[in-house]
């Protein structure tokens, strides 16, 4: 059975000038132990579709879907209390800005143990032990001491490790990583990606990697979905996407990579493509 299945997801926001469709009929499926990358430029609805699936959008958003299931359980008809039991435990998420997504008022140890307090029946001592174990897992040196630190005392890379540790606290079946390395340097990015891939393989998690960086896609994904303005443009396994992109948009996107430059200029075909051409050229 697939882990997460979404069919025809639509997310609309009410604005002064009428409803704005951020996600327009996206369908996707993730299996156990699979790495799915969702790629798109800013405004392509890649983050919003995942937030909608987790029910984390504010009330101003109208979310509809033909199907939205996790392990065959319907997430739409579920009560909020029921959904909260799944989210943070079986599905968890890592956000883009590690420093901003941790609470500056509490120690990182408190924030990890909070997840365990809510979702497990471990007692205080066991929670502490588990937190130390998690810090070791994500490669934070001397965890006992580090648990007492506040987010501002740690570097961006370390904060992202704390976020990953928090997300992994209850051994989730599905991890959603929303641009996990965008705010980090290449050398740190490499470490974090390697860590994520190692943990993914060890635990057999499903992993959804939301990113705009084709390099990250090439380094991590099994399967890729390309999105543009809230619509799915192409879905393919990673090798065929890079070897033989089908849609106009993906081709244009790949040719805009600086490494694919011919002479002094970069091809900017996306500039000349109209939305209609992009949507018509979509391969779903």
């Amino acid at each position: 059975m697939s882990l997460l299945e979404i069919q025809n997801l639509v997310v609309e926001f009410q604005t002064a000038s009428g409803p704005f469709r951020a996600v327009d009929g996206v369908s996707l499926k993730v299996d156990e132990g699979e790495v799915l990358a969702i790629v798109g430029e800013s405004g392509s609805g890649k983050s919003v579709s995942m937030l909608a699936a987790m029910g984390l959008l504010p009330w101003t958003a109208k979310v509809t879907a033909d199907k939205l299931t996790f392990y065959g359980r319907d997430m739409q008809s579920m009560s909020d209390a029921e959904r909260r039991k799944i989210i943070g435990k079986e599905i968890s998420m890592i956000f883009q800005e590690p420093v901003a997504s941790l609470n500056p008022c509490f120690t990182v140890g408190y924030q990890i143990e909070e997840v365990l307090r809510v979702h497990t029946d471990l007692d205080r001592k066991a929670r502490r032990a588990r937190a130390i174990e998690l810090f070791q897992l994500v490669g934070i040196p001397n965890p006992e001491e580090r648990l007492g630190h506040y987010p501002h005392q740690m570097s961006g890379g370390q904060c992202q490790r704390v976020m990953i540790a928090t997300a992994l606290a209850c051994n989730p079946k599905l991890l959603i990583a929303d641009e996990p390395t965008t705010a980090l340097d290449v050398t740190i990015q490499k470490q974090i990606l390697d860590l994520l891939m190692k943990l993914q393989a060890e635990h057999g998690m499903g992993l959804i990697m939301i990113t705009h960086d084709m390099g990250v896609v090439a380094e991590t994904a099994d399967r890729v979905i390309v999105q543009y303005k809230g619509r799915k443009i192409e879905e393919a396994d990673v090798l065929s996407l890079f070897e033989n992109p089908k849609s106009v948009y993906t081709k244009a996107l790949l040719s805009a990579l600086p490494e694919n430059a011919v002479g002094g200029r970069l091809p900017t075909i996306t500039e000349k493509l109209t939305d209609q051409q992009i949507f018509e050229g979509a391969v779903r």
Partner: protein
Amino acid sequence: MTPVLEARNLKRDYHIPGSLLKKAKTVHAVKGVSFKVEQGKTLSIVGESGCGKSTLARMVTMIDPVTSGEMLIDGQKVDIVAEPLSSDMRSKVQIVFQNPYGSLNPRKKIGDILTEPLIINTKIPAAERRDRAMAMLKKVGLEEKHYSRYPHMFSGGQRQRVAIARALMLNPRLLVLDEPVSALDLSVQAQVLNLLADLQEEFHLTYVFISHDLSVVRHISDDVMVMYFGEAVEYGSRDQVFGDPQHSYTKTLFAATPRVDVEAIKARLERRKRA
């Protein structure tokens, strides 16, 4: 020919004052770097955050004084501590910052943003200022109707175009670009990089390009300098640095950069299958 920019053993220290419980501390942000940029060339400075590349940018732009060492712009020695800079010197070096969302004043119209450098540094009358701003808008691929709009009405790529236009208003010799495309999407990044290449050709501009994205650096530079903890660990032509990196940090940096070629993906998938 004298180089547009020459730096000899530039250093910059930051003093962190002590308090009741803490001792005063000195941070050596840049520990003596030397380099030269000829007119019309691009020098890229690469390194991870905290390695001093932005400090270097601020020194070159004459925002921060140098602690020791010499900096020559067009063969003229610059020392902003000893004497106030003439507006002539100010006009020679301009900077474009990383985040176009933060570097444009949200309460000013694009026209005001573009003409402000002229008001401060020149005696050009208002009508001509306006004409120049209009001409510059077209140069960077925007339109005249954008003159009286506010920054929030623009996308990130357009804002970066405005920031570039502002930097060019004074006809600078040297443009310092502090991660100008790292906040932009891939396709927009390509457009801005092309714009920079066109402008360089048209105005014979000299660029100091700061970035941590090696694929962009490889595309745009003539010379490359790699910085690590305030020191220049590698400095040479692009082909030298990329073809035959000497320092272990440069090699680490290259190894960490994600590769998008099909062979690399095949190799990774193969590894994954075996594991």
